[in-house]
């Protein structure tokens, strides 16, 4: 059934990695096949942070095929050479796990061309590209993933995350949320629900040059919104259009460098509880997610059917 959570601090920063970990761990009964974080941290705004993978986590329960680590090394080498060809300068390089890397990059040109080149390497996927955003996702529950990537100390303004019970596609990182809003920097999406016109929309979007990395229906939301924004729509306009263009039952969150939004389908079939104050907005599939960071008595409510809301930092 999956669980989603998100929070945005308005006017200040906080330890969003730790807070989101608590929220997602409270939702682990909704699914712990994989957990993903989209964290919007403090950066100098000059360089891109690229999170990417050169292989899958093939731990127990994974639906991925096991590969030798030497294959990952080969792929990394090709990525490095492509970065050089593209004129991107790697400022800092971290290989967090054999299959998971974080590069700080100086790059000024078109991100679509950049992404297509990098992802042309077999088994390589950019998880996120942004000057504020970092997407971290892997198999296991929130605590496991947080510990594996040392996320509990990440400071930032806002974050969204997802605890996944795999239903429509495999147990692997490529199908895990959040999804990056390719090719826009700093856009990410998490979703709880099922989309029933996935293939119709996917075919249309692929014909327009948009890319899909998985067969997870939730990825469609990120690509759908990215395509709307590419054609000049604001985030909120794109989200409102999605209530008509996407068929099925869904509640989703989308975040950009300076905003966080939620949308709920017209059947209101998927849960969402929301807390709003002047300096903090927190939301999740269940109230216990919010309670993990706000244990005191608070005012919360369920947004109604067909509702779209966007908050700025």
């Amino acid at each position, binding site marked *: 059934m999956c669980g989603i959570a998100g929070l945005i601090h308005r006017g200040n920063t906080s330890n969003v990695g730790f807070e989101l970990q608590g929220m997602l761990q409270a939702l682990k009964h909704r699914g712990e096949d994989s957990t993903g974080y989209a964290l919007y941290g403090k950066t100098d705004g000059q360089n891109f942070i690229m999170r990417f993978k050169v292989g899958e986590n093939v731990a127990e329960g994974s639906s991925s095929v096991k590969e030798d680590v030497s294959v990952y090394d080969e792929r990394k080498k090709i990525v490095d050479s492509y970065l050089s060809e593209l004129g991107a300068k790697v400022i800092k390089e971290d290989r967090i796990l054999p299959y998971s890397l974080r590069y700080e990059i100086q790059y000024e040109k078109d991100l679509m061309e950049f992404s297509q080149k990098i992802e042309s390497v077999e088994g390589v996927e950019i998880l996120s590209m942004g000057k504020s955003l970092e997407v971290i996702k892997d198999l296991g529950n929130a605590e496991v993933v947080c510990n594996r990537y040392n996320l509990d100390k990440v400071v930032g303004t806002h974050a969204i995350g997802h605890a996944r019970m795999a239903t429509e596609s495999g147990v692997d990182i490529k199908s895990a949320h959040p999804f990056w809003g390719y090719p826009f920097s700093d856009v990410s999406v998490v979703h709880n629900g099922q989309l029933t016109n996935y293939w119709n929309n996917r075919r249309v979007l692929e014909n327009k040059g948009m890319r899909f990395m998985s067969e997870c229906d939730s990825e469609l939301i990120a690509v759908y919104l990215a395509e709307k924004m590419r054609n000049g729509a604001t985030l909120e306009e794109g989200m409102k259009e999605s209530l008509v263009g996407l068929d099925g039952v869904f509640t989703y969150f989308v975040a950009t460098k300076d905003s966080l939004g939620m949308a709920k389908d017209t059947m209101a079939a998927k849960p969402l509880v929301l807390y709003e104050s002047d300096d903090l907005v927190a939301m999740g599939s*269940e109230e216990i997610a919010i309670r993990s960071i706000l244990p005191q008595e608070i005012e919360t409510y369920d947004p109604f*059917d067909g509702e779209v809301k966007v908050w700025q930092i």
Partner: protein
Amino acid sequence: MANLKASEKKSKAQSMGLHTEVLTGKTQQKFFNPDEAENFYYFGTYDVDFNKRTEIDVKNMDCREANKKIDELMKDGYGTIVIKNPQGKHSLGVGILNKLNLIFEGSLGYFGCGSMDGPIVRINGRVGWSCAENMMAGKVVIEKNAGSCFGAAIRGGDLICKGSVGARTGIDQKGGTIIIGGDAGAFTGFMMQRGRIIILGDVGINLGDSMYDGTIFVGGKIGSFGSDAVEAELTDSDQDWLKRKLKVAEIGENFDVSKMTKVVAGKKLWNYDALEPTEKKGAI
């Protein structure tokens, strides 16, 4: 199908012996006999004293531990139990088949107070999805907002939310009364079969969709009517009942009920009668 009157159908079915069938084995009917009341045992019920009051802090308990503790306290005769720090936990206060004053000082998660029969519950916070699902009797008052499927399939009792509620309130409702002080979401009264829903605020789209029976009263705007839901005349008797009910519920006592919209089933979707399929076959 032959054009038979209902009485003719019934007599024809009876002539086939369908109404004189003697049930045996597991399906044997047992009727309550007042003379044997002292031998009648209702599982999970205790003699409690409302003046005997206690508090429990469930902050570090899971729902099973908390519900077990409530049961133990009722067994010890406590008739008023205050629950501290529920903190949005799921399934608290479920399956209570007893008279009891139960007070939650905080909010509940999903399925709070489900399948209960008799208690009077006050929740000084919010409730998540499916609050009081399948309630048979009693009264539940929520001081703040409620999630979706509020009062799903309740059979009886009063369920009162002073704030707003999510979608599908009163879905499959089979009796009792649901009262909402604020707004209600889409598909309110979806497939309701009996009972009443009162909404003082606005209500979303598809109100009363596919309802079989029952009545919905709305004080504010209606997003849209669902399939087979129609507006009906608000009678003097309806208004008297609404005033009395809102007063007893301590909500909207001064609300102008004369401007409420009454919604009932158009019954155009009905395609069956009082006969069981086997009876119908025999009657044709």
